[in-house]
């Protein structure tokens, strides 16, 4: 009975993800602190929440993709998870692997950016509304526009607060992702 014992555990994934999360939380907190002009502690908390949230949503996306009952897709995922390769080899396999890896990376970055944008909005509006530190951000909201004709998107684009929010999230994500991608390239 004990001879049949086997275990395949995602320990490497756990270690790598914890490390990458710590790195990106540290980098993003610095950027958020600079751009949103808030205290270091608040910035760290914000970036921790945003990063954890985006990681969680990315995992959910992975589970969704995994649950598609398609044999080839499943084998492709297995190939990636077990052997760090996307496709069966051929003449251009190195290029193709690199291309797919880049594509996956860009998808993850985009999802993270969107989630963090929504998350920051949520944090500022609903959770941290009474906080004094970001009062200057909230108060810089323009008085309600009289013309209601403008579409929501236009309103969103013109709002000063949203511009700051977008800037903060974008630069935070950009810097942390550049750093992590460089790290992955160096390691592999």
């Amino acid at each position: 009975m004990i001879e049949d014992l086997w275990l395949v555990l995602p320990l490497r994934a756990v270690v790598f993800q914890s490390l990458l999360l710590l790195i990106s939380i540290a980098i993003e907190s610095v950027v958020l602190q600079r751009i949103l002009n808030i205290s270091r502690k608040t910035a760290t908390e914000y970036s921790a929440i945003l990063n954890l949230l985006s990681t969680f949503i990315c995992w959910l996306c992975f589970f969704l993709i995994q649950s598609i009952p398609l044999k080839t897709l499943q084998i492709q995922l297995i190939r990636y998870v077990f052997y760090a390769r996307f496709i069966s080899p051929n003449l251009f396999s190195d290029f193709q692997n690199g291309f797919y890896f880049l594509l996956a990376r860009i998808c993850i970055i985009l999802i993270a950016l969107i989630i963090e944008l929504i998350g920051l909005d949520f944090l500022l509006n609903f959770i941290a509304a009474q906080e004094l530190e970001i009062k200057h951000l909230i108060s810089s909201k323009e008085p309600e526009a009289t013309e209601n004709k403008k579409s929501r998107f236009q309103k969103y684009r013109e709002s000063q607060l949203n511009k700051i929010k977008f800037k903060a999230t974008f630069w935070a994500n950009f810097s942390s992702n550049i750093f992590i991608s460089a790290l992955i390239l160096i390691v592999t």
Partner: protein
Amino acid sequence: MTKLLQSFAWLINLIKPPRIFSWQTVILISIFFWVISFLVGLGCDNLRLQNIFSSLGCLAVIFGVGWFSLENPIIVQGFSLSTWIWVELVCLFVASWWLDIAPFIWMIWPALSAIFAAWPEFFAVQKKIKNLVNEQRFKLLIWILSHLIISCWIQFSLIIQDWVLQYPSLLADNLSQSDFIVKIQPFSRPISGGERVFNAMERQLKIQIDGKLWVVVESWLKNTNQREKLLTEAKKEISGVAEKHLWNFRTEITAQKTGYNLLMIAEWQGPSYNPQGYFLKKVCQVNAVTRQPTPVKAKLRRERKNNNARVATTPQVIITAKPVKVAKIECQSVTKQIIEQNQLKNSPKL
């Protein structure tokens, strides 16, 4: 006697509950249950009785820990550690009883633990999430989100277990290149699906042709239908798993000096460590050996005993006692061959 008691006084004081009606008593009861279940296991092989006693012990532990965490919750940074452990114990117990929903329980226990551990500080005291201070809200969010990610990791490992069950040959391959997983298999060498089929074929071959008359065996070997039948029979070994479509089996017969070589080839078409994949090879040598037909000999001796007088049977005896050519089968162990880069995948060079 009193001296003996006195020398063990510290131990008795340590385990003696302060009151009869306390959580320490419940823990003692659970230890008592476990001792009983151990004794039952030693005494008789009644597995059911043993299970009942050990799960009663588990229930008592859960009850005791729950009581303990109600009385004095160990609060670390606003989260009750004892409640966290208690929820984990409950989840373990439920998962061990309902095997059908065990994966689901495994998946949700971090989230459940997180919510219950945060309960006394965050929900019960302030009555509503609305009343929380910002700092507390952030703390709560980080706490719950990090546990959700642990849930994701557990779900991921369950998915991997499921994959390995469907494609057991993955386990036999080299997994050191992966960025995600670690293989732990300390006690045995993993066997791939192809090897399993080969072993089944060897067993069948030994039953069917080992020690049979050479003429019969020769015609059997040359008959492709027979070999096909053998293969389909052996393939039943891996019919339960999803990877059966990824194996490509074939057999070949080559004539040797003293007999035939039966070559079995299994190509793996799924993902593997080696970029071009690999194939497994097993050679069984079927040789003709001359052997004295022992059963016939015994028969002859019996005949001779029965009719001593008849000398006329002698020429017949000489004819039947002639050594016969029978088949002897010898199989080598399975070898793994990696397909090189410039080789065509469908026609591996042997």
